[in-house]
């Protein structure tokens, strides 16, 4: 009511006109202002494929599995594969581990990936055709990831692979009990259906020829590393020695190798574990992994070692194979010196073994870059810049054939990174990686607000049943447990619409915008008390000093 209101029109018993306190702009009291921020969650920071995990979990939390899947597909075209074989650096980094147990990100990813296959969700190509053609050599995780992203960016992509089936190490390196082939097939088919040309059983030898004669504007090399590293073990002619990579690839081609009842696997990486577990499934009564250092120095991931041991694989630490004979091997015991390097002790021991499988690492077949001008090879891998381009203009490389931690997830990440750089190169620009936000550390969270809830443990097949078959070892989550698991996410450093800031402001100075648009501070009235920042569970509000 205005000042001009005449006496008599005021309500009963009111003698003075009423003014609102909105005239009093208490914002002038403020010395600090709250600012909404997005910090980088540790899971996102750790993901080699660059997934925005916090975001897709946010979507999965409300049951929006398709939206969650589309968020994953922005970065990684293999959610169902990753949900099975990724070594989950995200879970190692997860802040929730400090509170109780890490969020089972990987199992939710698998659930979402499987939903996509079940419901036949597809990804559209929205970019205008660029008219550029890119050749990808190698249909493994890195090559297919690059093909997927390049296609979405509007380029015409051909993928060539020497094998008869696509997938690379996903098919020929990872045993089917860890990664069922129908899952691999489904996720690759989805990429092919987007218009990627797949040419199998084709060996590429002439890269510059492909560019000049066939008219490819750029090439991405991702041939992987699938030649088993040999070691010179003194051996009798009758000793049976195989290499792990060929053995695993042979399994896929239907050639079960003759291993005998007692199998020794030489090496301490994931491949050694895969072979030992495969040997068990092929009927070996005794599978022993011989490794020259100690378990904590083993390159194999903990979970692989654990599952192998559960299945009855034996481990021999601090041992090298000195001699291999028919039916048995001689082992020399080792000790670690001060630098952690194994040294021989001169003590020997005999071990029964019908066959020895060498799992001592893999080499890339780099024949195709021989003679390609400008390409530098060092330490058996192709050298690339941060943009993944080799010394030869327009030729990029990624995955196991360049210096990297050799996992499928890293390879997929390379594929994305290469695609973005190739795209920029084709358009005559340089790819600018967006600036990274500040890390959302545990200390910034107000963890009091999160429900106490332990992790959902994936049901696993009975060990006894597992070792006799190649059935999948780790079962998936059903919808209710996947939802529960997703909701354990703390949403570190990112607003998740909990309304706490809106509710706790004593001055109504937080404006809720509604419909997923988060909140705004009403600086006319915010006194800068800092309650919203202190009570934000995810640490997504920061107090910043006002300029005086």
């Amino acid at each position, binding site marked *: 009511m205005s000042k001009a209101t005449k006496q008599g029109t005021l309500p009963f018993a009111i003698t003075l006109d009423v003014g609102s306190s909105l005239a009093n702009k208490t914002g002038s009291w403020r010395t600090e202002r709250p600012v909404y921020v997005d910090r980088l969650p540790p899971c996102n920071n750790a993901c080699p494929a660059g997934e925005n995990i916090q975001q897709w979990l946010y979507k999965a939390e409300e049951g929006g599995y398709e939206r969650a899947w589309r968020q994953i597909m922005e970065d990684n075209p293999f959610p169902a594969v990753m949900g099975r074989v990724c070594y989950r650096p995200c879970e190692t980094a997860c802040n929730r581990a400090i509170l109780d147990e890490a969020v089972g990100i990987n199992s939710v990813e698998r659930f979402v990936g499987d939903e996509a296959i079940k419901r036949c969700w597809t990804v559209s190509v929205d970019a205008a055709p660029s008219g550029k053609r890119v050749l990808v050599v190698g249909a493994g995780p890195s090559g297919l990831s690059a093909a997927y992203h390049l296609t979405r960016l509007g380029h015409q992509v051909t993928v060539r692979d020497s094998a008869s089936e696509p997938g690379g190490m996903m098919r020929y390196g990872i045993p089917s009990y860890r990664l069922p082939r129908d899952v691999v097939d489904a996720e690759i088919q989805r990429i092919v259906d987007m218009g990627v040309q797949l040419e199998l059983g084709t060996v590429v030898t002439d890269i510059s020829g492909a560019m000049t004669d066939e008219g490819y504007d750029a090439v991405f090399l991702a041939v992987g590393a699938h030649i088993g590293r040999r070691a010179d073990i003194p051996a009798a002619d009758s000793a049976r020695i195989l290499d792990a990579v060929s053995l695993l690839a042979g399994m896929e081609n239907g050639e079960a190798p003759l291993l005998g009842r007692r199998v020794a696997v030489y090496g301490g990486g994931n491949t050694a574990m895969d072979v030992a577990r495969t040997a068990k499934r092929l009927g070996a009564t005794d599978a022993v992994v011989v490794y020259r250092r100690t378990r904590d120095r083993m390159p194999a991931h903990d979970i692989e070692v654990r599952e192998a041991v559960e299945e009855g694989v034996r481990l021999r630490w601090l041992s090298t194979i000195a001699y291999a004979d028919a039916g048995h091997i001689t082992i020399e015991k080792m000790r670690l010196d001060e630098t952690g390097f194994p040294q021989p002790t001169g003590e020997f021991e005999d071990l029964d073994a019908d066959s020895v499988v060498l799992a001592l690492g893999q080499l890339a077949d780099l024949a195709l870059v021989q003679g390609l001008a400008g390409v530098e090879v060092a330490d058996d891998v192709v050298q690339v810049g941060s943009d993944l381009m080799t010394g030869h203009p327009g030729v990029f490389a990624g995955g196991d054939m360049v210096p990297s931690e050799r996992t499928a997830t890293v390879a997929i990440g390379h594929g994305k990174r290469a695609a973005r750089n190739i795209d920029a190169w084709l358009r005559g620009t340089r790819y600018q990686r967006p600036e990274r936000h500040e890390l959302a550390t545990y200390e910034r969270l107000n963890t009091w607000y999160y429900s106490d809830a332990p992790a959902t443990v994936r049901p696993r097949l009975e060990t006894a049943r597992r070792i006799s078959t190649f059935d999948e070892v780790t079962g998936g989550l059903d919808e209710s447990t996947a939802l529960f698991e997703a*909701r354990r996410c703390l949403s570190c450093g990112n607003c998740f619409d909990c309304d706490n800031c809106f509710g706790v402001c*004593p001055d109504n100075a937080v404006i809720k915008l509604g419909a997923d648009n988060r909140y705004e501070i009403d600086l006319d009235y915010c006194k800068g008390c800092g309650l919203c920042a202190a009570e934000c569970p995810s640490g997504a509000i920061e107090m910043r000093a006002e300029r005086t």
Partner: protein
Amino acid sequence: MPQQQIRFYQTGSFVVGNRLLDPDQRTVQADMRRTNSLNSGHRACQGCGEALGARSALDAVMRATGNQMVAVNATGCLEVFSTPYPETSWQIPWLHSLFGNAPAVATGVAAALKVKGRTDVRVVGQGGDGGTVDIGLACLSGMFERNDDVLFICYDNGGYMNTGVQRSGATPPAAATTTTPAVGPEPGNTFGQGKSLPLIAMAHRIPYVATATVADLRDLEYKARRAMEFHGARYLHVLVPCPLGWRTPSSDTIRIARLATETGVFPVFEAEDGEVTAVSRIRHRRPVADYLRPQGRYAHLFGETPGEDVVARIQAEADRNVRTFGLVDTEVVR
């Protein structure tokens, strides 16, 4: 449990809102269309617990009554900071009278409404601990014993903060105020004095008595709503930390209130007809020192001559609350 605890929903029911809950399970404070009974521009200190508590409680009553509510306010911070002439922050029908007679005025309003046949309009009286525990107690006790149809809400910040932090009957032992300074052999407020108004209210056998804090707005709302389901005299006692009088940073208001409950210093419960019917269990129990140390009014207990014996006495009081009200789950839930 006084309210349904929602498990596994990320933050469950601990935060104010939660997009994962059905709309009818969300709070009034999470609603963009809440009344905002106490509007912006009021002159309460930064981080005022009372301003927050009053808005939450009255918004909940407004929702519960379909916006048919009259509030009567005692003198105190809440009145002074909200209505300096010619402004008001209240967006509800609001009456102010004197320091000591708010319960009597509320009784009068209720009687008038009854005479007019306006059974749809409900009455709330409110004030600080000075106006309620000390000065207005006679009027309040009268309102209780006559079972007048009023909900009276006390926002307890443990002292006369508006006039310069003097001791009240709700000031806790050992706390320093300007009238109980931290000097002498027994610094701060004396042990063995003061009173618990929730227990006094219960002794009147009125239909509903409850306590709450600003650390759990969902619970505070529930209790305001629940109170409106009864007719007759009802009493709600809300702990509202005061950054000025407790000498805490303005951003700590809610944390301190949370510590008051998690240590057992302030039991959160509800009672019907004089009998305790539900208590809020402590989620992660903490020693009282965790609650006392951040507050300047207890600084003398942690200074050069630490008052370990005093802290032990306060701990014993908290332990007694835990025992009396059963604040800790005896069965192990994991």
